[in-house]
Each structure stands twice: as structure tokens, then as C-alpha cells.
């Protein structure tokens, strides 16, 4: 089959390797592009017991040995991984006789490989900036953080077009790297609503009983246990919530703050109310999201907020902090509840309101579900992305590289 357009995407994570939000993003974006007739190659890192090459719904996935070179630290590992990624990609592009129209990088973690390939094969490079170091760390404090920031700046400099998932991120990236307005495009993140269909709350009674008593409401947090995600705000809000509602807090995810958070829970004598589940598999996560009486996204910095979308798709009411991409996804009192960021009292108010008022809770979750189906559909996102590819290729065709 002759394809009109072919793209080679780079991501350091791709299922079953899941670290953060880039993995599902690249997975669904590449599949939806393939469904729309785009030839998609994904170059990503290896994962135990996973093939180095496979075709998933038309997407050619290549997994690169990411531990080929011993590395003294994480950042150096990233650059060494890029060395092997670039080498493998060069072999593939050479093998398919340069039939690649665009390179598409996801975050700084693949910057080196993509930038080199752009110049070697003289094809346009696009970059999706899922996050920034300066945002994650609320400033740049160490040489490593500055180096990552400069690598991000370098990637956006080399990219023909920079894609961000929210208007907030467009403005943030524009500020962080001094980019011109016309270099930036907004394409929202999507969510796969299908995985949540056909699971009724009733069928999950037994599953639910493993985590909470029938009289306990489930408050769900899904995310890495790191500062920027504001999980400590939720833990600090727990006693205030428990004053009015009998609830169980389920915390899914891992991170460097875990021990600290466990200590806080212990010192508040709430170990029996706050359950740290660590990393859970996809099927369990979907069921937890279906069971949740409220899903909380208390982030301090949030480029997009895909967990909020997932909760909306699962018809679980959401309480989010009014920041970043979350501010754009949620309409207060219509599709969810917005609270002040980094404010446990405000968060406790929002969670309590949802848990105590069932009509309100049903109203916002039904609206949220409708919104997700129409606005954050992967097919629509793939079409928007293709429009950007085509616009870039139109400009490229007039350049001396063409």
C-alpha cells in the first residue's frame, strides 16, 4: 500500500513500557494516524519480554536496546540511549530508502537522536513538548536541570513546529524558550473512552471490597508521587475531608515522595484510611477509576492532565486544582470542581462537596463524559496532527532541502 504521508515518531516510552503520560499519548496518536492512512514508525526503548520489532494496528514499533552503554547518571543515560536510538533509526530509514516525510519527537528525552536525523536526512522535525524542566522543578536549580532545560530549548529551536497539548502549555513554552507565536500549535491530548465501556459499577462490588468498606467513599489519586503533582496537598486535606465523610483514599503510583507521604499519613494516624497501592496494571487501574466516588488531580504544575480526562471517561466526578491544562479541561460546576492549587482547605471543600451531594456528583460526571467524547477523541486529534504535518511539508517543499 502506498502511503501519502509517513512519519517516524520517537518516544522513550511506549506500551508496555509506561512511565508517564507520553506512553499512552504516542500509542493512541500513532494508532489513530495509522487508521487515517499515515505510515507510522515508532522508535522507542526496549522492555523485558517485548519484541524489538512488531506491528501494532499498522504501526511499526521498533524497540532499541537502551542499556547498551553503562551510564553514570540519568541524564547521561538519556543521551547514551539517544546514541543507540539514532543508530537504529538511521539503519531503518536507510533500509526503507528514505521514505520518511517527517520526524516527530516527544520531549527532550529523544532530542539528540531526532535533531541529528533531521540534518542527516534533511527532513522536517516536529516536537511535542509534553512538559518542561523549568515547570516541573518550578525553576532551574542544578546543572542537570539547566542542561535539560537547554536541551529542551535546543529541540524547540531545531523543530519546524512545536506542538503543545493545552493553551496553557503553548504560552508556557513560548515564555520558557522565547519561541515565536507562529511556531506553536495546540493539539489537545486524547483519551480512549472504549476501555471504560461495558463495566458497570455493580459488577465491581467484589473488586471494590478489596480496597474499601461498603460504607466508605473512594477518593482516588492517580499519578507519580512527586512534588509537582501536589499529592501532599491531598494527604494534608484528608483529615478535613474525614471530618464530614467516611472515605478511603487510594493512591496509585510511585515516586520519590512516597516515604515522606507514608510518614505524614502515619503521623496523622490515618494509615487505615490512606492506601498506597504503588504502580498497578492497566486493567486494575480502569476498574479503580470506575469505582472511584471522586477522582482528585491536585497538581501544582500540570501541562495537560490526562488523568482528569480518564476519570471523566470513567464517569467518575473530578476535583482538580485550577492550574495549567486542568483549568482548560474542566468547567467549574459543569464538568467538575476546581479548587485553589496548593490549598488543602480548598481541596477538602471540593472533595467533600462531591461526596456529600450525589445529584451534583452525577450532574458533573455526566457532563464531563459528554465533553470527553466530543472534544478529546483520538481520531479528531490525529486529523489535527495530520493538518500540521501537511502544513509543514508545504513549507518544506519550498525550501532548499526539498
Amino acid at each position: 500500500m502506498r502511503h501519502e504521508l509517513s512519519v517516524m515518531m520517537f518516544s522513550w516510552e511506549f506500551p508496555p513500557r509506561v512511565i508517564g503520560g507520553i506512553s499512552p499519548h504516542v500509542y493512541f496518536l500513532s494508532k489513530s494516524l495509522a487508521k487515517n492512512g499515515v505510515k507510522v514508525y515508532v522508535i522507542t526503548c526496549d522492555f523485558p519480554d517485548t519484541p524489538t520489532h512488531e506491528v501494532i494496528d499498522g504501526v511499526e514499533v521498533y524497540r532499541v536496546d537502551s542499556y547498551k552503554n553503562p551510564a553514570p547518571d540519568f541524564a547521561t543515560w538519556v543521551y547514551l540511549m539517544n546514541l543507540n536510538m539514532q543508530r537504529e533509526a538511521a539503519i531503518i530509514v536507510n533500509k526503507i530508502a528514505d521514505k520518511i516525510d517527517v520526524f516527530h519527537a516527544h520531549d527532550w528525552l529523544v532530542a539528540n537522536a531526532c535533531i541529528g536525523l533531521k540534518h542527516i536526512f534533511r527532513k522536517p522535525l516536529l516536537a511535542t513538548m509534553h512538559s518542561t524542566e523549568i515547570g516541573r522543578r518550578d525553576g532551574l536549580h542544578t546543572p542537570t536541570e539547566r542542561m535539560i532545560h537547554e536541551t529542551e530549548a535546543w529541540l524547540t529551536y531545531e523543530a519546524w513546529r512545536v506542538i503543545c497539548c493545552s493553551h496553557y502549555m503553548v504560552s508556557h513554552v513560548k515564555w520558557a524558550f522565547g519561541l515565536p507565536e507562529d511556531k506553536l500549535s495546540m493539539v489537545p491530548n486524547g483519551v480512549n473512552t472504549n476501555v471504560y465501556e461495558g463495566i458497570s459499577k455493580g459488577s465491581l462490588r467484589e473488586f471494590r471490597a478489596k480496597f474499601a468498606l461498603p460504607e466508605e467513599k473512594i477518593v482516588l489519586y492517580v499519578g507519580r508521587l512527586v512534588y509537582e503533582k501536589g499529592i501532599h496537598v491531598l494527604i494534608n486535606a484528608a483529615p478535613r475531608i474525614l471530618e464530614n465523610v467516611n472515605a478511603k483514599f487510594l493512591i496509585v503510583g510511585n515516586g520519590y515522595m512516597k516515604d515522606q507521604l507514608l510518614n505524614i499519613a502515619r503521623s496523622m494516624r490515618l494509615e487505615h484510611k490512606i492506601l498506597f497501592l504503588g504502580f498497578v496494571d492497566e486493567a486494575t487501574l480502569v476498574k479503580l477509576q470506575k469505582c472511584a466516588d471522586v477522582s482528585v488531580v491536585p497538581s501544582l504544575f500540570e501541562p495537560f492532565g490526562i488523568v482528569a480526562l480518564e476519570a471523566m471517561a470513567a464517569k467518575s466526578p473530578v476535583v482538580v486544582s485550577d492550574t495549567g491544562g486542568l483549568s482548560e479541561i474542566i468547567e467549574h460546576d459543569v464538568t467538575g470542581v476546581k479548587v485553589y492549587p496548593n490549598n488543602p482547605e480548598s481541596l477538602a471543600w471540593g472533595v467533600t462537596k462531591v461526596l456529600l451531594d450525589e445529584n451534583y456528583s452525577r450532574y458533573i460526571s455526566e457532563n464531563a463524559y459528554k465533553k470527553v467524547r466530543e472534544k478529546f477523541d483520538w481520531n479528531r486529534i490525529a486529523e489535527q496532527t495530520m493538518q500540521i504535518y501537511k502544513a509543514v511539508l508545504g513549507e518544506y517543499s519550498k525550501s532548499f532541502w526539498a
Partner: protein
Amino acid sequence: MRIILFSWEYPPRVVGKLADYVHLLATELVKNRVDTYVVTYHDFLTGAVEEPNGVKIFRVANPVRTHVGILTWVLTLNQEVERAAASIFYQVSKRVDLVDVHDWHFIPAAVTLKNAFGLPFVYSVESLEDHRSPPANTPYSMSIKSIEWLGFYEAQHVCVKSEWMRDEIVRIHNVPSAKITVVKPTTNSWLDNILFMYKSVAGGASSK
């Protein structure tokens, strides 16, 4: 014949003995009618220039200024080396016979260019990590050694300056000795030997 030399030092940037050696090599190659390009690093004297001796030099700076070590510094700089080499490659209608990479710093670029363009490279060894930082067993040294190994593995041929170095490479990196040529820069036949080696490497590439 047209070749590109990669070296992380070239006058006026002199770190050790390599800069002067590569300068001498480039100058002599031009005298022997080899179209010679040098891709090297300089913090601010960037861009393409032709020197009075006829050597064409393309200097690149590091796009990332803050670094946590030599490895990250080298690995971001390599993308600029690739950009420079690709610019030369397209400018001369892809007629480049080989790359001669001096020491490990720009091996990543040489490896990618080889796999992307089928452009063979020679790895010229000035020194090894095992001798620079004995016993070379820190994570940094192990990492640099793995890049040296990649260079030996992917290179069409290896060029060294002494029998001792050849034996060390065989011992440390298990490279077959037939892949290594010893060229002593102090002998009269020095350049002829290098040209002979270049021709044997380029022969494979230009015959396709």
C-alpha cells in the same frame, strides 16, 4: 578522493598532541590532491572556512552550554558534528569517500553517518580510556570505553601509531589485529601508508 576528518581539537584549539597531528595530516593530504574537510569544535569560531593551505574546516559549537560531565558535553556536540558532516555531504553531491575520526569523542556521529549514508569510517586512535584514567572502572570510564568499543566494532578499519597500541586494542577490546594498521608518523612512508589504507577503505564504498 574526498575525506572528512573528525577531531575535537584542531588549531587554534589545542588541548593535547592531537590538534597538531590532525593539522599536519590535513595539510599533507591536500598536498597529495585529497579533497580534505575537517569537522571540529570551537566555542565561538563557528562555521565553514577554507584555510590558506587548502583545508576546508567546519567548526561547530555545543548547542547545550550547561553540562554535568564530558559525556553529556560530547553527546550533544555530536549532533552538530552530524549537521556539519551532512552539510558537506550534500554540498558535494554525496561524493565523500570516508570519514577519519580521531579518538572517541565523535564516534557517535561517525557511526550514525555510516548507517545512514553507507559512508565508511576509519577510527584513528591517539589514546585509550584505559591508559588515560587507569584502572578505568568508574561509571564514566566504563561509558567512554563502551563508546570506544562501538567505534572499533563499526569502523571499517582502525589506525594506530604504534605496535604497542595495536596490541593494547587487541587485548582490551578484542579487535582482530587484521583490522588494525600501524602507521608511525615518524617514518618517511607515513602519508603513503595512510593513503594506502584510505584507498582500501574507500575502495569498498566507491565500487558500489
